């Protein structure tokens, strides 16, 4: 079975600026992959290349085995794409736009559409141009999922949504995801929400992929280590990240955590605690490390 997304050596340059560099990534079918990164990291550029909206300078990408740059209309019957600033036809009402979009997809599920419409509480009679940003995002989501795509690509779906709208949107997405078996690839800055949605996490920094692994393994691998009762100026163990010592207390990040006993063996006289890290903490740690390395180089 083809992976949902397969990216090989994807590179995109804008004149002298390299937005994405040699990105290689695979998202298995049925997996929800969060694509994280700071502003300007290359997330949107990557997604545009994935959707065939932008030609890569080098490399190639495949969606369910289809070359992104050669996607045919029939391929888009299996792929849903939502971007934060996608244009919707403002002169149509919500119902008219849904009806128009419905005609594009033979596999459109009318019952599912009505169910989602109720769930999202979309105002069917209202013109699209007067919808709020949250309502537009929900509408775009509805228009992208009602035909049961095998792969859903979302570019900043939560951007601009207020917390309540974001919660509603996320809840809707989670409920729908629970019902469907599809692959999901989405970029976002709302890292807290990712943990509820993603199976896999990819982190990109300045166009270079830094992390790409399942969320549980990532969280398993990262630990914040606190060691109490160490002598002054204790040297952190090899591989310790962002180490700092205050008196007899040493703390650092272990990005290759296996088990607490191994760390305890390094500090036999001290009390060792290995604290789990949230995805947000991991992301911030990753960002700081990247910056430090960049400064050092």
């Amino acid at each position: 079975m083809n992976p949902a997304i397969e990216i090989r050596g994807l590179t995109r340059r804008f004149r002298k600026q390299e937005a994405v560099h040699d990105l290689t990534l695979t998202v298995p079918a049925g997996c929800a992959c969060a694509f994280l990164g700071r502003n300007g990291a290359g997330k949107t550029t990557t997604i545009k290349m994935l959707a065939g909206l932008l030609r890569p300078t080098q490399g190639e990408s495949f969606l369910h085995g289809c070359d992104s740059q050669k996607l045919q209309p029939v391929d888009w019957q299996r792929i849903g794409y939502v971007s934060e600033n996608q244009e919707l036809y403002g002169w149509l009402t919500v119902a008219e736009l849904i009806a128009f979009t419905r005609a594009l997809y033979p596999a459109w599920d009318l019952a599912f559409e009505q169910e989602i419409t109720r769930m999202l509480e979309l105002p069917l009679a209202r013109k699209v141009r007067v919808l709020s940003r949250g309502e537009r995002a929900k509408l775009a989501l509805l228009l992208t999922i009602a035909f049961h795509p095998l792969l859903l690509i979302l570019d900043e779906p939560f951007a601009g949504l207020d917390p309540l709208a974001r919660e509603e949107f996320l809840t809707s997405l989670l409920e729908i995801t629970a019902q469907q078996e599809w692959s999901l690839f989405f970029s976002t800055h709302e890292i807290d929400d990712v943990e509820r949605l993603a199976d896999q996490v990819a982190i990109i920094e300045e166009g270079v992929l830094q992390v790409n692994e399942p969320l549980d393994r990532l969280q398993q691998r990262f630990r914040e280590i606190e060691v109490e009762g160490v002598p002054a100026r204790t040297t952190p163990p090899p591989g310790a990240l962002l180490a700092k010592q205050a008196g007899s207390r040493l703390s650092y990040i272990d990005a290759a955590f296996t088990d607490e006993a191994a760390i305890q063996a390094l500090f036999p006289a001290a009390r060792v605690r290995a604290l789990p890290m949230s995805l947000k903490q991991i992301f911030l740690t990753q960002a700081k490390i990247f910056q430090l390395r960049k400064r050092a180089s």
Partner: protein
Amino acid sequence: MNFPLIGKLFRKDARSVRWWIALTWLLAAVPINPVPPRFGSEEAPHDWEASLCWLLALMSAVRLAQMDDPCSAKGFMRTRPASPWQQVFAKCAVLAIGFIAPIALRHAVNLTSFRLGLGWDDYVRAVGLAAPFVAAAVFIAFLVGLVAPRIGYLVAVSMLLLFALLAFRHDLTYVIQAIQLVDSTVISDSANAMIQRELIAGQTLAALAAVVAAGIYASSRSWRQLAVAVAGSVVVALVAIFLWPHPVAGTADWDRTAPRSEWPDASGVVLNWDPASPPGGKVASKLPVFLDSYYQNQNLVWDGDNGHVDSWPWDKWPLNMLSDWYGQKYIAWGGTVTGLSPSWYACPVAFDGQLTLADGRQFHSQGDWLGHTYAVWPWPSQSAGELGPNPAGVGGSVPGLWWSGTSEDVEEPNFARVMAKLYNYAVDDIGLATGDAKVSGQVTLEFRRPVLLGSLPLKVGATFTANRKRFTIVQADFRGQHLDVFFTGLEAMIPLRGGHHAHSLQAVLYNPVRHQTLSGPGAVDLGRGSNGDDYLLWNGGVSWDKESEEDMAGHDPARLPGASANHPLVDESWIRDARICFIESEAGGRKTVPFDFSGLTPETDTKN
């Protein structure tokens, strides 16, 4: 082709411009001015509603193109299962039904209101001729719409506004010309060739624009590619439209000094239509210049009745006037309208000029080649009408020179001959110059252009509207060699001034089946009816008279306008198929040219 899907796309696109479509149809339905366009003039009718329709069509094309911009990642349809071709097809359908159809219909309505006596095939032709240009313009607008986000909406709209006005003027001019040409007689083949050429040009243009637009839409993802493609296609389209030869003027480009037998067939003479280009430039059309060749022919073969003037000295007379100015400026129009009256006798150009001799004396000359008055009198002077109803005879009632229409004069309505007459009269009657007298001066000619007011069949009840007035045939009788047609309402339309010699309205009988035309004195004339209320079209003798047959002897009838191998024998069937065509003349321009009669040795005047 998924037509249900295209239907959905069509409805979506149409809805986005529904108000503009409604406005276009509304504008197309606005009654137009029924005054026919000025045939022979370069002025387009001021049909502002049609121009607005154009503008709306082009603006809508821009909007439709921008709506699903293929180069924008934000476009809704970019990631939907509809092919670019289907989208383009739907947008084209919106443009065709919403905008091109009303414009084309307005063309048809225009033509109907002009009362040109057109058949259904003319309407098909008109619409068919206009549609490619409309489509080309709209597709160009489509391309502009694609690039507009980058070059600025204001620039795009300004371009469109300009283009709308130019395009409308352009295509309507073609339509009218084409129909007029097809309705003509001897030049119909060439007219058809011209129409075919223009159709091919328009269709090629439209196809080019469409292919480029669709190609860009389908494949281009790079702004650089897009910019190059759009710029290239726009340049090609504009060059094709604006530099395409315009049939507004022409001049023959064969060797006029060659023997007549070596002249090209009049129906196949290649013209250079562009007055700005020198002779021998780009060959553009095949409108025959029979008028010009006819003049030259007459001048070369004219032998005079009494050795009066053997031939007009080409090296003395500024022939450039005929070939370079007269020919370029008016020959096409003359040819066009002459197509409606290409008889042996009728030439559709008149002159009204001033002759200034070397000794300072001036004479006013007037010639109406559709009519029958040639007059010369001292300048400044009154108009012919003011001189009296019948100033016949040399000198007439006022000092000066006159000759009025006699059969001999009018049978050879030949510009050069008129000038020869003028010269002879000047020499003989005033004694300006004899023998080797040096007579030179200049002549200021005011040409009059023919304007086709319309035509109608020779049937009782047939109506005709011109200058917002309508008149009706109430009686049409053909007996023997006479045709009497009585009208009502004619007085409201024709201001008869000082008798039939002076009025500007001319009528010719045109048989579109046989492609024959009768006109001029002795054939067709307009006059006042004896009952004082009706006005009649009187035909004093619709068959060729003996003298004219003799005149035609020695000429190849096939080269002559309106003439067939067998001289037309007008009978009832001829009349049954005939139409009355009304032609009005209007000022067409002035030209002052020098002349030099030195070396001429005119003989004694034998004027009638």
